């Protein structure tokens, strides 16, 4: 910075004085550093949101598996083979329909009861369930529920059904 002063002879002169300041290069460097930090934070935020959404899917799938399992078990031993979730669980909040054979595999060695498409009305996410049972020991039946969903939601039912890449499995027992 230049300061205009007067000499002993009364003549003006310029005197250089060093003061604290930031140069353009320093400012640009700071901006670059902040930009990198913001971009890094954006990535962190993106993966946090993505993982939270995935956790939502898995949470809902686990709840649906438990819902089917408990409802099926509630029919009792004799009602195992005639259980129909379409008739028992369809509601305003949850749409349950026959998937026409689309869905995850039945548990190995179990007798298939049916495959169903389940839609959560609240968020519109689709799940597919396969219900199967095994006679097991006398007076005891194993009920198996497999709920599958597409972690990469595409918006199309057909695409989603083809891309089922995650499953939640639950086995419970019902006695005579």
């Amino acid at each position, binding site marked *: 910075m230049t300061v205009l002063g007067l000499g002993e002879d009364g003549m003006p002169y310029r005197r250089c004085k060093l003061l604290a300041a930031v140069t353009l290069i320093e*400012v640009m460097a700071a901006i670059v550093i902040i930009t990198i930090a*913001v971009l890094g934070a954006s990535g962190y*935020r993106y993966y946090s*949101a993505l993982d939270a959404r995935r956790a939502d899917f898995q949470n809902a799938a686990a*709840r649906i598996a438990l*819902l089917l399992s408990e409802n099926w078990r509630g029919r009792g031993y004799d009602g195992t083979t005639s259980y129909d979730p379409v008739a028992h669980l369809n509601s305003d909040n*949850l749409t349950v329909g026959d998937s026409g054979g689309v869905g995850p595999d039945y548990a190995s060695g179990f007798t298939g009861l049916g495959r169903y498409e389940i839609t959560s009305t609240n968020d519109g996410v689709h799940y597919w369930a396969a219900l199967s049972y095994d006679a097991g020991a006398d007076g005891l039946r194993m009920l198996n529920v497999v709920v599958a969903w597409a972690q990469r939601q595409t918006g199309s039912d057909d695409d989603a059904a083809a891309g089922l890449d995650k499953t939640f499995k639950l086995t419970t027992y019902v006695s005579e």
Partner: protein
Amino acid sequence: MVTMLIVILALGTVIVDGIRGWQRTYDRVYADVKTDGYVARNVFDRVVRKAGRQTYLLAADGSWLEVYYYSSPSAPTLDRYARFVVVSGQLQVQHGVWAPGTATPRSLLTTETVCGNVSSCIFKGDGRSAQMELALDDGTLSATVVSSAVMHNGS
């Protein structure tokens, strides 16, 4: 100077948007509506699972559900009731003494408030299981809890 101002404003916008997005994500996981849903499901499971399978009472319109349970392992009969009901937007469980065949078959003991922000709640019964369809809405976020539990006790 103008360039710097534009860059700083752009960075500020990105940072503010990031904070808002983070808040939205946080609310989706930890908002009262979400945590209340977990609590409601657990309470419903806990109460219904200890109930007797012999009988339960359900409102014709599904607005309330009453199940019965033993007060202690030594109780000879089902002597307590638990009624799930929505009162002023709150899901409540009313516990009381149940003495069927007497002049006062129900005597309220305690009322447990499970959660608030209830926009609708429908109960169903099916075989030995009971279902609850609970919709929560606090004006900004909504959540739906669909739960089923089997009544275990009894022969």
